């Protein structure tokens, strides 16, 4: 039996948030499928961001229920402790959300070349923002930085044609999201000891 109490505390504290396999992997796979559509010049590349979000919601709804059942049956259920934030931090978060809303609605669409870049900006910022905590996850911060980089500095648009740039962008972001989902699952599994029958008397 593993008596690494620090690892047990980490597992219990982060168990709920490490079950985000569905949102990241579904988003990543859809981005990779989108890249194939885009690079092949298929008509599907004309689909708007709203179509992508609608399709994502449908697939995510189905996958997330099955995934939740898988984790509950295999690893159990944990009720996470409520996050304790100070009033000042709460005020900062509220202001941050309001500023983000203004940016998303009025300013960013005028600047970014495409709606997809806006999406990666939001996802990247959320990934990084959520890691301002004791148990930060390196793979999430790395993926967040990659997504932010894709949205803010569209190097691919300068270096290649529009079709290739969008396709490559979707590949890079798709891979980053899949890594987030699989990375979360890997961290969760390895923070829990393997099942060994051991008798403990006392």
């Amino acid at each position, binding site marked *: *039996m593993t008596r690494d*109490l620090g690892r047990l505390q980490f597992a219990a504290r982060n168990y709920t948030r490490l079950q985000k396999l569905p949102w990241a992997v579904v988003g990543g796979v859809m981005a990779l499928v989108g890249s194939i559509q885009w690079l092949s010049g298929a008509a599907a590349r004309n689909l708007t961001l709203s179509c992508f979000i609608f399709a994502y919601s449908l697939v995510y709804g189905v996958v997330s229920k099955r995934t939740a059942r898988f984790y509950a049956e295999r690893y159990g259920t*944990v009720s*996470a402790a409520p996050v304790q934030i100070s009033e000042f931090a709460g005020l900062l978060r509220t202001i941050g959300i309001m500023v983000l809303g203004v940016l998303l609605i009025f300013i960013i669409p005028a600047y970014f070349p495409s709606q997809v870049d806006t999406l990666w900006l939001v996802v990247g910022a959320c990934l990084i923002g959520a890691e301002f905590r004791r148990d930060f996850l390196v793979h999430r911060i790395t993926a967040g930085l990659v997504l932010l980089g894709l949205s803010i500095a569209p190097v691919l648009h300068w270096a290649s044609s529009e079709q290739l740039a969008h396709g490559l962008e979707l590949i890079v972001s798709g891979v980053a999201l899949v890594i987030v989902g699989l990375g979360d699952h890997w961290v969760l599994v390895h923070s829990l*000891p393997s099942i060994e029958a051991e008798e403990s008397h*006392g």
Partner: protein
Amino acid sequence: MANLPQQINELDRLVHEPARLAILTVLSSCQGADFVFLQRATGLTNGNLSAHLSKLEDASLIKIKKRFLDKKPQTLVSLTETGRSQITLHWFRLEELRNAAAHSKPQKSSYEKRLVIEPAKS
């Protein structure tokens, strides 16, 4: 101030037992967990875990709630207020022990003192 052996003796054996300490550590990091997660986290067998949980419940350190979820029985375990304060106190005592041990100097017994080899007189 109590000496080291006395401080060690004052540790709560109910809490300090490794399996129960692991259970209480897991529960102190969340609002509650079910039997499956506790078993997975601690690596104990079903019977062993049940026995330890019974002891902790008898001492009012945890509360156990049984319910049915999707027609399957589920056992939910959470710390009581007493349990939370006990595990916090236990970690505090362990920290005090660690600090005391770090600052204490090893004392030679009278036997060890007699064993000191004196240099040969030329």
